[in-house]
């Protein structure tokens, strides 16, 4: 038996056109490659 209240919490307001710009700016564009670069940079600094 589902819990209606809990299920209702899974729904979020959909993006409207006016929110698109904010959404785009707030999108997390960091990927694994970025992490790897950061790790490589940190390792190089550590070796120095």
């Amino acid at each position, binding site marked *: 038996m589902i819990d209606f209240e809990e299920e209702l919490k899974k729904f979020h307001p959909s993006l*409207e056109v006016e929110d698109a710009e904010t959404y785009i700016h707030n999108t997390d564009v960091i990927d694994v490659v970025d992490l790897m670069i950061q790790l490589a940079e940190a390792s190089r600094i550590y070796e120095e």
Partner: protein
Amino acid sequence: MRCFNCGAVLSGNDFCTNCGTDIRIYRRIMRLSNMYYNDGLKKAQVRDLSGAVESLRQSLKCNRNNIDARNLLGLVYFEMGEAVAALSEWVISKNIKPERNVADDFIEEIQSNPTRLSGINQSLKKYNQALSYCYQESYDLAIIQLKKVLQMNSNLIVAYQLLGLLYIHAGEFGRARKTLENGRRIDKNNTLLLSYLREAEAALEERDGNALPSSRRGGSHTRASNDSIVYQSGNETIIQPLNTPERGGSSTFLNIIIGLAVGIALMWFLVLPARIRSSAAENSDEMVQVSNELTAKSADIDELNKRINALTQENRDLNDRIETLSGGGSVVEMYDILAKAALNYIEHPDEVIATSNILEGLAGENTEDGELVYSDAFKDLYGYLNSNVSKKAAEEYTQKGMQAYEGDNFNEAITNLQNSFNIDPTNDRVLYYLASSYRNLGDSDKATELFSSLVNNFPDSEFIDSARTYLRNGAENEGDGQNNNNGANDTGNTETPAATTPEQVLRGIDLTNGGQAAADPLFGAGAAQ
């Protein structure tokens, strides 16, 4: 592929030939990103949109610059009704790769139809409004709003999910199942949709309370009603009708009888009326044709009858003509009589009375067609004989009558004088002595009638005074004037009976000659001259 450290183009080695950086992990990350992209593409092709979204998101986590994965993610969002999210992905994609990016086409297509974009945006606003109603526990309003949302944007998966959830919460499991199945047509393996659908079906089964034993149907079979079984086969919900027991022989026979009755009824009410109408129409056409022929025949018969009548009349006229020419009283006979009269007159010129009697045979014939029948020579001969013989005969009759009168033989006198007067009704002397003969015989009525005729028709007669005297004195004094032949007793005023013509007087007398016209029995007065 370029080196993530220096940006140089990488070769087949495991390190960058420019900066010497180890790129083995980098290569594996790139492969992982591509693998997720491929997975997302496959899922999108089988309409597993939510699964595709997950795979494409993983792909972008590995490599945010995977343009294909980002563009495909935008497409999947758009298919799920999330147009703004789709546009955002395409904008980011275009920002990463401004040139030769298919996202340009997508954005341009969306922006080229502002009405559609506005409709989608309105549907999203309404969805958010419905969600707000849900938070306010105004579930009925939320349901109404979500129905409008789905009418405007029928691909919005979250709206199907929320509406299904609200139906389940309201206990309308049938509607919930229908709504969720509609959503599954867009996104087949949406986890939330499936979980709600299962919940709705379970609730329906529990409510109906007619689940089949799991051992018989493999655990997932349910009886949807008395006539069908519903069970899940993979993603498909199968509704299988239950086998009905075969009916007995009597019911089969009954069904055959009912079928025959229905067939006969159909024949009676549908086929036969059409046949009857068709036959009636054919008969009507034939009747019209026969009627036309009959009318033509009748016209021919009428015409023939008219011709027959005309010919019959013509035949009758010809027969009459033949009868007239050859029968009794015919022209031949008339010529024969005229010839006898002429012969008698030639042989015995003095026997005018005999000749006159012969001519009397012509006097009784019908003279209406005389102009057509008798020739001019006939008429001339008849006129000659009639004028000569009749005049002499009248004189002879008069002479005999006067001799008989003087001999007091009044009966003979009356006969002769009457014959004379018949031939020549202008002779007042004959009329006077004829009246006197009647007076002497004692027939005062006849005498009075003849004297009156004399007074009225011959006012200049020398015998008028005697006639007036008789009429004035009447039968009482008849003895006084019996021998007064000349009767010259002019007393002046006399009263005469009502005027009568000589012909009227004669009609009252029993004429021995049949009352023939004296002047010209055949051709009128002119012919007698």
